[in-house]
């Protein structure tokens, strides 16, 4: 993966701030289509992930990619996070990482 630019932790609400930038998000897979995956962000917002995962998907999925719109990510990297995941914690992380502690992340 191209690690040159770090990806920002986003949830649904934060995605719009980073349109055009590299973001990463964990979503809960709702539906999987050809070429896209519909999922729910950790703050219960619908996210569309464009691309096709190579591997079978588990419930939770992390995608790293470019934010296209405020609810779409064009994914480059897909990572399965398993079936149990604490979305709440992740959500908090996103908030913190972009809020108080962003200097630690970017």
């Amino acid at each position, binding site marked *: 993966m191209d690690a040159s630019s770090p990806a920002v932790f986003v949830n649904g609400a934060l995605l719009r701030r980073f349109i055009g930038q590299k973001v990463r998000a964990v979503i809960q897979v709702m539906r999987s289509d050809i070429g896209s995956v519909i999922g729910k962000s950790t*703050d219960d917002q619908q996210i569309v992930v464009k691309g096709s995962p190579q591997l079978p998907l588990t419930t939770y999925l992390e995608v790293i990619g470019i934010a296209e719109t405020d609810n779409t990510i064009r994914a480059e990297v897909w990572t399965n996070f398993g079936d149990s995941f*604490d979305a709440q*914690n992740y*959500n*908090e992380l996103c908030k913190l990482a972009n809020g108080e*502690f962003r200097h630690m992340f970017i």
Partner: protein
Amino acid sequence: MAVDLTTGAINKMLNGEVASEADMTPVLQVTELKLIQSKRPNQEAINRYKVSLSDGILSQQGMLGTSLNVLVTSGNIQLGSILRVTQFVCNLIQNRRIVIISNLEIIVEKCNIIGGTHVQAGMPNEPGQQLGGGAGYVNTQSNGGYEQQQARRTDLNGGRYGVSANSPQPQVVVHNSSDAGRYGVSANLPQPQVVHNNPDAGRYGVSANLPQPRVVHNTSDAGRYGVPATSPQPQVSQRYGTGSGYPETSPSIRPYGSAIAGYGGSGLEQARAPATTAYSRPVQSAYQPQSPPMYVNRGPVARNEAPPRITPVAALNPYQGRWTIRVRVTCKGELRRFSNPRGEGKLFNFDLLDSDGGEIRVTCFNDVVDKFFDQIVVGNVYLISRGSLRPAQKNYNHLHNDYEIHLDSASTIQQCQDDATIPRYQFHFRNIGDIENMESNSITDLIGIVSSISPTGSIMRKTGTEVQKRALQLKDMSGRSVELTMWGNFCNAEGQKLQNLCDSGVFPVLAVKAGRISEFNGKQVSTIGSSQFFIEPDFPEARELKDWYEREGKNAHFTSISREFIGAGRQEVRKVITQIKDEKLGTSEKPDWITVCATISFMKVENFCYTACPNMNGDRPCSKKVTNNGDGTWRCEKCDKCVDECDYRYILQIQLQDHTGLTWATAFQEAGEEIMGISAKDLYYVKYEHQEEEKFEDIIRSVTFSKYIFKLKIKEETYSDEQRVKATVVRAEKLTYSSDTRFMLEAMDKLRTGDANSLPVKTESSNYRSDAFNSGIGTSGIGETASVDARREFELPAANQVGQYGNQYSSGARPVSGMISCNACGSNGHVSANCPSLMSEPQGEYTQGRYTGGGMPRQHVGGY
């Protein structure tokens, strides 16, 4: 011979205008004369004469000075004599005026009684007697008949009054209203002096028409004699000063008695004693105020119970003499048996409350128990008298009184009508916040909302007996909550009721009377034998509490002054390993209990277990190391037994490491199993019996570098002159990132708000930040959670109410008393993240977790 008596003198004496001869030397007539013998224990009998002196209108009791006795015995002073009192003192003794005559002049020796019916004021009439009659008085008893007595008196009296019973006399109206009434004159005249009479009258059902020979006190007597209302016994009525020979036992007499005691050394008292004994036992308890006087010619005359003098309970003291109290029973104890060197016995207690709010406990022993046990009902009002006062036994008696009453067979308890002025219960409620400052083992009352209740558990005491125990949480307006422990019966009866209420979602108000404050995990309240529970009571405080709870209390945060349940005395204090050293944990007298999140970096495999004694000691195995006897059996020193099969118990030495440092700790059986995931015995077999080295190593390897939440007990111990701080793993839990993360977030929140309270941000915070990226956890590479799971270097502020404790950060020491209170459920020992009752909320709003009641963490008692 007509001599003028100083009329009005008596009145003045009574008023207090005339107090001694300096004021006047009245001329008075002797209307009564009686010898009182006082028997002092160490002296011979002293004779004193008691007189009634009249001024023609009123008469008054008095005592002749002993120097004057000779005049009486010689006959110079007799009934009817007219004297000028030249030296005297009027004293007020127990509300009675008594004249003490030191010197007098005899004016006329023999004279008819002058004046109309007298109202005797101030003194109960002695069983009057004819002069020279000696100690005895004319006894109804001895006469065997009322009639006779009257007959005897008649002559005496007739002259005196010359008035038929039914002719009202002007004086009668004034002074003798009572008499008038008594004489059947349709006078329902108010009886000013006769305060005492009225109750008597009422008591004995003496109607206004009942002729009552004597004033004041005699009413009762008359009543007692059941003088029928219509019986024309003028003589009777007029038997004024002449005692009917009934014992003056009205309470007013009592004081007189004691007053006289002042004079002549309880002369009167003793003098009475024979009288009363002659009358046989005052059948006090047989008295029922409501029943009409049926004492017609009954031999034994009971003492006058008239309770005009209700003593306030707070004024009771052992030196008071006879008292009567009107009280309500607030609490009745159980019948208890005991045996002491003197033999067996039984006793029971009950608590009383009077209208002034005075409380006192009453104890009855043995026979008295039988007498009264059934009679006492909680909530009823009784008149109690004649008990003895003893100093209260403070270790059993927690009422606010220095004395307690011991009833004996002479005591009386009468039920009387409910007195609304007496409250039902008396509480001295305290706020839970105050309790924190009260000392242990003190008794208090408290009231609060039951927020949770846990099921009954059974605890084994050291003595080996099992006892039921149940805990509940009480909250109140001070913002604190406390754990209330119920023991024994309370668990079942009240406990169940409370449980039902709580389960149904109601948070009942509970008032506790007499709970003991104990120091166990902070401050707790326990029930004792005499505790009482009132569920949803009807007090203003209860209603107030309920309203408050509805409004705010439900969602408010509560600091518990009872610390968490997990482990005895342990609080969930998160620390990092270097803090153990920095803060010198374990060096104080008591061990320190902390929690660390650390990884096992190394484990000694050589001696990971030992052979242990499997014998059960109570419900715990002995676990002492057993020695091999060589023949396959194992011997335990402590139990002194040999066993064939020994237990294997873990004794793991592990090295714990977190981001700050490392330490060694020892894990015993329970923790060891948790860590290893395999029982000690199996592991032992794997290694030694089956020699499966590989498998063994695999197991070990899997264990190391796993991260756990360890609960450690830190204590400094001395090993042959060397002080070492030892850490014991009390509990090891595998780390769940999810919950740990929440924990962290919590902590961050607190940190943040702590910052907001303008406390200097300490290095911890910066450490935290710098470490945020340090996700160097041995396992698990989940990025986000790991980074969030940054080390908790900062100390966690203690309270839920963050502002309250102000988050005292300091790089080294942290408030050791800090406890972690769960925002969600208000209990301690975990945060809302870990809260068993928390429902996961997507918004990460931890602070508003609803309390679901129940589900309190298990309580470990004993053990550690």
